[in-house]
């Protein structure tokens, strides 16, 4: 069993869904940590030193050593603090969870970004792409991972995919307001809807 780190610091920003994922994971695991809020328009020297490759939040600093990239950080957190587990024990199921986690970054994040940054036809195209990909994810998860029971993709308790989707919920709602379009609809993607809503209701999420 890994030695538990003595000092954990998270560099983040409330507008970063990726930073929110890390907050959520740490809180779910009951990890004590210090939060350093970064101004994304005016990043600190320290952040640039800690993440010279990407110069972004979130960065988790563990006993002085930085880890960047939210998915890498989430897997690290799950490796060190075992309870509750975010990833399944079974290697095949783990591979499926990792596949869908990657899918969020490669197939949902880019069109979401497109919705935020573009207008007119380009925005409409991004919206359509986002919704289509979300439906693909819903269908895929139902087929490959989900077994009925519990509001979360992981079942009764949230797992990695619930942390990821749940942490993007606020950002998605904001996008819906900005774009004036419904991106997440219960009758289209009921499982993803329920996991995000259930996640938002968790004590650890509601408590600041």
């Amino acid at each position, binding site marked *: 069993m890994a030695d538990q780190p003595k000092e954990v610091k998270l560099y983040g920003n409330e507008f970063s869904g990726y930073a929110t994922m890390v907050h959520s994971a740490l809180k779910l695991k009951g990890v004590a940590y210090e939060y350093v809020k970064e101004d994304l328009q005016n990043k600190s020297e320290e952040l640039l030193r800690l993440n010279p490759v990407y110069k972004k939040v979130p960065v988790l600093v563990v006993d002085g050593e930085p880890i*960047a990239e939210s998915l890498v950080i989430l897997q690290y957190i799950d490796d060190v603090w075992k309870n509750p587990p975010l990833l399944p024990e079974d*290697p095949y199921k*783990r*591979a499926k969870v*990792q*596949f869908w986690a990657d899918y969020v970054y490669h197939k949902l994040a880019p069109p979401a970004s497109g919705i935020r940054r573009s207008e007119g036809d380009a925005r409409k195209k991004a919206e359509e792409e986002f919704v289509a990909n979300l439906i693909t994810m819903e269908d*895929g998860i139902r087929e490959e991972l989900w077994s009925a029971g519990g509001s979360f993709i992981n079942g009764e308790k949230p797992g990695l995919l619930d942390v990821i989707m749940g942490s993007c919920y606020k950002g998605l709602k904001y996008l819906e307001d900005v774009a004036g379009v419904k991106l997440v609809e219960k009758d289209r993607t009921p499982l993803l809807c329920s996991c995000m809503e259930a996640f938002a209701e968790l004590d650890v999420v509601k408590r600041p």
Partner: protein
Amino acid sequence: MDPPSSLKLLGSWADSHTHRVQLALKLKGLEFEYQEEDVINPSPALLLHNPIYKKVPVLLHSDRPVVESVVILQYIDETWADNPIMPSDPFERAVARFWCHFAEDKLAPAVGAVFSSSGEGQKAAVDQVHDNLKLLERELRDGAFKGQRFFGGEKIGLLDIVLGCGSYWLAVFEEVMEVKLVDPGTFPVFHAWLKDFEEQNEVKETIPAIDKLLEYARGIRQMMLRLSNGTSTTVPATAGTTGAINVAVDGSSG
């Protein structure tokens, strides 16, 4: 009579992501059946097992598919415990995963851009590759991998497999594109690591002969240049050749 292997790999001979999986299976001493895929005309099996990305590699274990090469590598490591590919320490695992992400997200696209561009665009792409290699060189020389023979330590690990299966394209592109990508004077530690990696038996058995890779790259380059005549065209995907030869060739961007 030996029972048929429960492992089957759908791959492509010139695809670096396929090589990653082949190498990992070899390092683990695992027998597997191999099926060559035409990436332009995927087989029904490939479309069935990887409907979302329709790409190689796909590892079938007792007919259950695992896709995405870095996911496959970790799956193999978790399922067969001997000759581990991943470090055991969680922080070292995070470091390995981070640089795998970097390899896919920054380095591979930059290398692909060298191949698919020309003129000013190519110069910018070459600079990008150099910037990315500088980051790796620094990490090897002074950072997380200081003093190690391989990224995985004394033996090849996840990051060696991910970076190494793809880095051979650097020498190929240097020749085909007549550019300098890995100058041993500028990147001595990276260069030494790459040479050492390529000398390992399992690696020599996995990576195709350089003349075949040169011929392949020249063929693709000629096709790209023929198609690029001031209009935007998409070159058919050669999945994972550098992770990024699926590009839109736009004559005006050079």
